[in-house]
């Protein structure tokens, strides 16, 4: 297909993907203030995605956040070292939490690309919503033809 044809097809289509709804997956506080999200499957997504798939995504997210906030040898070491240097190492070093956040961002992007975008859904990284909610944007399901 030539570029002109492609241009015309784009103009012809002008199918604009509008947002049908947004679902917000809330935090799950049963284990305290650690960052965990509810795995309950929202009814609005029933027609779009498999329940298993969705719960798997949220469960993996929860595990990643648990890893970020884990209290263990390495986090204590980081904390003690920081204390000894009057916390100035935070200025030059990336914390463990930040490293895991990058992993989470990559994971969400992967999930969006492979699973959610083809179904007309979009996951928003919770860090952009203050770690309060997982925002799932549902786009209108219009079949696009030429």
């Amino acid at each position, binding site marked *: 297909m030539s*570029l002109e044809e*492609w*241009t015309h097809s*784009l*103009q012809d*289509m002008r*199918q*604009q*993907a*509008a*947002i049908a709804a*947004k*679902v*917000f997956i809330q*935090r799950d*506080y*049963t*284990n*305290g*203030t650690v960052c965990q999200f509810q795995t309950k499957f929202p009814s609005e997504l029933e027609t779009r995605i498999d329940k298993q798939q969705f719960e798997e995504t949220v469960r993996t997210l929860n595990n990643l956040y648990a890893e*970020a*906030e*884990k*209290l263990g040898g390495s*986090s*204590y070491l*980081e*904390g*003690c070292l*920081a*204390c000894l240097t*009057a*916390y*100035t190492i*935070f200025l030059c070093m990336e*914390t*463990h*939490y930040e490293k895991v956040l990058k992993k989470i*961002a990559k994971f*969400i*992007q992967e999930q*969006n*690309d492979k699973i959610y*975008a*083809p179904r007309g859904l*979009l996951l*928003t*990284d919770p*860090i*952009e*919503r*203050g*770690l*309060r*909610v997982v*925002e799932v*944007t549902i*786009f209108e399901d219009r079949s*696009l*033809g030429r």
Partner: protein
Amino acid sequence: MNNCEYQQIEPLSLPNPTPPPRPAAVEEEEEKARRKWEVFPGKNRFYCDGRFIVAQQSGVLPLTLGLILVTTVLFFVFDCPFLVKHLTVFIPAIGGVLFVFAVISLLQTSFTDPGILPRATPDEAAYIEKQIDNSGSSTYQPPPRTKEVVINQQVVKLKYCFTCKMFRPPRTSHCSLCDNCVERFDHHCPWVGNCVGKRNYRFFYTFIVSLSFLTAFIFGCVATHLALRAQGGRGLIFALQESPASAVELVICFLSVWSILGLSGFHTYLVASNLTTNEDIKGSWSGKSEAEDTGNPYSYNNILTNCCSVLCGPMPPSLIDRRGFVPVEQSSQTVSMEMVLPMPAAKEIKVVGGPTPSQLPPSRALQVPSSPLPATPLSLTGRPQFSCLF
């Protein structure tokens, strides 16, 4: 199953309503793009382009800094020479280390985001409102909104924050001075000029502990200095006359050491039981009735674990993204999305979703490698187009 293929789009070859092509569009984006701290709704002030955050009123932070500086400088100038000569050179060394610790942790407490929760987006607020309204009538002012959750087999009430338009997470409180919800809110400290919350509690604790050591140390050294000078029957008055600065230091240290030591002791107790000042004052977990089994649901029931988790736990990130760019919403441009995205011809773009002007996807989803605003969702006035081939 839809088989969507992502197609190349040549921005320069597409007919665009607004000349010229991408450089101007990009420039307009850059000019209009503001950082999030500039539009922050709370009552905070920002310095160094959003790198530092303080409360609106700096409180008595200058006084705190001034007192510490003046006392320590006087100590080094007037007392240390005598003490080094008569005792040991370690005295100014120890004093120096304590002073550095105290000042650095004070500055970090004052200029660090205490754990401010960003306010709910309009969509989020509407979603929560809908859920609340579903459970009751909404014809007139509804009763105060609370939600109950069970944390570690204990019922905790979450309150709805009318300013931030969300249910506050547990241990979060809204500071009226800063007009923000702060996670693990301890208290708003005027001496430090900032709230003390989840992210800066360890700095605050280091500050008060190092300050109490510093004050006690200076007090002890000055007293020793005066005692040594007054030796040989010459008397205290003589000693004071020889070193009047010591009198100033003595007074300042004597008055402050009790309160600071007391505060350190109190916060050590709070750290060991994983409580916040807010919870302790309100008596949230003190067990109001004998029948109810109330206890702190956040405590690990082990002093060492509590201390380690509060002071040495992982450092949570700042949630307010001060230096990120504000998405330019509803701009007057009529440029379609393909024009806004600056991309080299050979690169593939993934047109994932179609946001309306006010609802923007994260920039990562749009995968624009050469985007001028790396941290922002790109603003799009025109609706983008799916390109799917079946």
